[in-house]
C-alpha cells in the first residue's frame, strides 16, 4: 500500500460525564490512502461522527481527545495550534454533512458563500473568483450555473444543496473529503446521482474520501475499503469486496444479515439486545453481551485488533475466516 494520506492510531476520546468519564472512542486505527475511498460504518452512537470530528479537532467540551495520534500528510494534527489546524480544515481535509440545507448559510446566495471561501483561502476576488466559482459548479454538475450562483439555499432542492456543499468543500482543493451521512437525507434516485458524482471526483481529481454511513449499501456502492465500528471501536476493517464476501467479526456478519433484502422475509433475530451505554461499557469485548458465539474469554479480556490477512484487521478472539451465513 502507498503511504497513507491520513493515518489515525489509537485515537481515544472521552466525554466528561460526572461522576466519571464516558469513553466514546477506544483506540481507533484508520488509514486512508491518496485517492482512496474508505467507508466508516456502524449504527447510531457507535462513534463514527465523533471520529471525524476528533480528527479535525472539531470536538467540543465535554468531549476531548485523551490518547492517540492523527497524522495527515505527515503532520500530527492533535498537537497543531488552532491557527494551523484551521489551515488544514478546508485546504487539507474538507467535510460535508447530512443536512445540506442546514449546513449552508440561509441568508447568502450560493455564489456569495463560494466567494467568501475563495477570498479567504485563495485570495481570489472579482472576475477570477467568479470564474473559479463557475468551474466548481460545473465540477459538481450543478447545471445552470448563473441561476445557481444567484440562488439562496431555500430555492434549491436537497440534492442541489448537497452539490453546492460539495462545491464549497472542493473550493480549497482538499486532498481528503469527509462525508458524514451525506446522502442519508436524500431520495434514492438523488442519492445515486450524488454517489456517482463522488466517484467521478475521485477519478478526475484523485480526491480521497472517508464516507461515514450507517448504510451498507452505500459502502458497497462507493468504497474500496471499509471499517466497521461498534461501541467506539473499529471491530473489523478490510477491502470492501472481502468484507462483503466473508465478514470475520460476528458483529459484521450479523449487521450484513440484518439488511432488508428484496424478496426475503425480515431477519428478526439478527442482533439481539441493544448498544451499550458508554458510561457502563461491558467488560471484555464490548460486543459480547449480544454475540451469538461469546465465550468466557470474551467477558474477561478485551481483544486486540489483529491483522489476520494482508489488509484485514479483526478485533475478536474467535473470528470466522469463512463465508458468512448471509450468503
Amino acid at each position, binding site marked *: 500500500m502507498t503511504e497513507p494520506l491520513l493515518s489515525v492510531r489509537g485515537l481515544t476520546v472521552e466525554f466528561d460525564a460526572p461522576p466519571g468519564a464516558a469513553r466514546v472512542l477506544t483506540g481507533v486505527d484508520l488509514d486512508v490512502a491518496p485517492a482512496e475511498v474508505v467507508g466508516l460504518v456502524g*449504527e447510531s452512537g457507535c462513534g463514527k461522527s465523533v471520529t471525524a470530528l476528533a480528527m479535525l479537532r472539531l470536538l467540543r467540551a465535554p468531549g476531548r481527545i485523551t490518547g492517540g495520534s492523527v497524522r495527515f500528510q505527515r503532520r500530527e494534527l492533535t498537537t497543531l495550534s488552532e491557527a494551523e489546524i484551521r489551515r488544514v480544515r478546508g485546504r487539507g481535509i474538507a467535510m460535508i454533512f447530512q443536512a445540506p440545507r442546514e449546513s449552508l448559510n440561509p441568508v447568502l446566495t450560493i455564489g456569495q458563500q463560494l466567494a467568501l471561501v475563495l477570498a479567504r483561502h485563495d485570495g481570489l476576488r472579482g472576475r477570477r473568483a467568479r470564474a473559479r466559482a463557475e468551474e466548481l459548479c460545473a465540477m459538481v454538475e450543478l447545471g445552470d450555473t448563473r441561476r445557481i450562483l444567484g440562488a439562496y439555499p431555500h430555492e434549491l*432542492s*436537497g440534492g442541489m444543496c448537497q452539490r453546492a456543499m460539495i462545491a464549497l468543500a472542493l473550493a480549497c482543493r482538499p486532498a481528503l473529503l469527509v462525508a458524514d451521512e451525506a446522502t442519508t437525507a436524500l431520495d434514492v434516485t438523488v442519492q*445515486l446521482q450524488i454517489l456517482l458524482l463522488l466517484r467521478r471526483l475521485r477519478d478526475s481529481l484523485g480526491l480521497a474520501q472517508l464516507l461515514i454511513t*450507517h448504510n451498507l*449499501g452505500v459502502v458497497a456502492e462507493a468504497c474500496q475499503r471499509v471499517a466497521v465500528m461498534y461501541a467506539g471501536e473499529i471491530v473489523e476493517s478490510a477491502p470492501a469486496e472481502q468484507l462483503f464476501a466473508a465478514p470475520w467479526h460476528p458483529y459484521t456478519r450479523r449487521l450484513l444479515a440484518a*439488511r*432488508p433484502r*428484496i424478496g426475503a422475509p*425480515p431477519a428478526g433475530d439478527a442482533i439481539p439486545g441493544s448498544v451499550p451505554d458508554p458510561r457502563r461499557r461491558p467488560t471484555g469485548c464490548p460486543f459480547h453481551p449480544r454475540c451469538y458465539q461469546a465465550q468466557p474469554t470474551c467477558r474477561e479480556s478485551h481483544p486486540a485488533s489483529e491483522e489476520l490477512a494482508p489488509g484485514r484487521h479483526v478485533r475478536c478472539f474467535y473470528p470466522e475466516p469463512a463465508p458468512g451465513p448471509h450468503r
Partner: protein
Amino acid sequence: MSLLAVAELSKEYRVPSGAFGRRPLAAVDRVSLRLREGETLGLVGESGSGKSTLARCILQLERPSGGTVTFQGRELTVLAGGALRRVRRLLQMVFQDPAASLNPRLRVGYTVAEPIRLHRLRSGEAAVRARVEELFGWVGLGPEHVARYPHQLSGGQQQRVAIARALACEPRLLALDEPTSALDVSVQAALLALLAELQSRLGLAYLFISHDLAVVSTMARRVMVLYLGQVVEEGPTAEILGRPRHPYTQALLSAVPRDVPWAEPARLVVRGEAASALAPPAGCRFAPRCPWVLPRCQDEPQPLQPVGADHGAACWRAAGGELPIWRA
C-alpha cells in the same frame, strides 16, 4: 369483500402564493386502491409523492377533497362526530419518529392505557392494567417497561410502544408510515419481524408506507408506486420488483444501493429531481426526468393501463409494449 376500498381519492391544499393569493397544490390525485383483511399493501414513493397524505386521508385525519373511502362497507368521508370516532378506532396509524409521537411527560404504560379507557374497551383499572401488560408482551416489551418515560427507552422500544398504543384500540387496519426509517438496521429487522408476526396473529390489514423498496418487499404482497401524487404503477410485489414496467419504478429500483461491491446492476440514472407539486407537468408528471419520453407524454396524462396479470402502469410506452423490460 374488501375491508377498505378507496376510489378516486384526491387531496388538494391551497397554499399561499405571493403576498395575497393562494394556489392549489394537488398532493394526491385520483388514487384508487383496495385492501382485504390480513393483507398488506405497500405504498412506495420518494419525498413529496403523497404517500403519507394518502394514508392520512384514508384515516380521515385529513379530509379528502374528492373521492370515497369505504371501510367495512361504510363511507367514511361523510361521517363526523361520535360516528367517526367509533369507526376511527378501527383504523390506527404508526408514525416514523416514535420519540415525536409519544408524549414525553407520560409514562408509556399510561399512553397505551389511554385509548383503552377512552373507548371503554376494558372495565375496571385492574383489567386495563392487565390489558396494557398483555399488549406490552405482544410487542416484545416486559412489565418493567410500563412505568418508564419515553426518554428512558431506545428508539426501537419507543416504536414498540407506539405499536402497542395502536393495537390497544383493537384496530382492523394499521397505517404504518415509514415505521422503521429512523431505526438502525438491526432494530429495523427485529421490528419488521414483529409486525409480520402481529399481522398473522391478529389478521390485521397493513397499509405499509416506505421509501425503501427492499423493506416493502419483505412486508407486502402488493405494491403501489406513487410519483407526485399519482399512482404510476401497481401490482404484485414480485412482478413490480422483478419486471418493473414504469420508467420511474425502474429508476427507483436501479437506484437502490447495491447489495455487494461486485454486483453491477444496469443503472438507469434519471436526471434532476421531482418537479414541484405546485406546478406539475401537464402530461405525465415523470416526463421531465424520463429517459424514454415521447412528445405525446408531455401533454397527455396517462391513465393506469394493464401491462400484465393484475399489473398496471401509467405509461404510454409500457402499455404499448415498447419499453425494454428492465430487470433488477
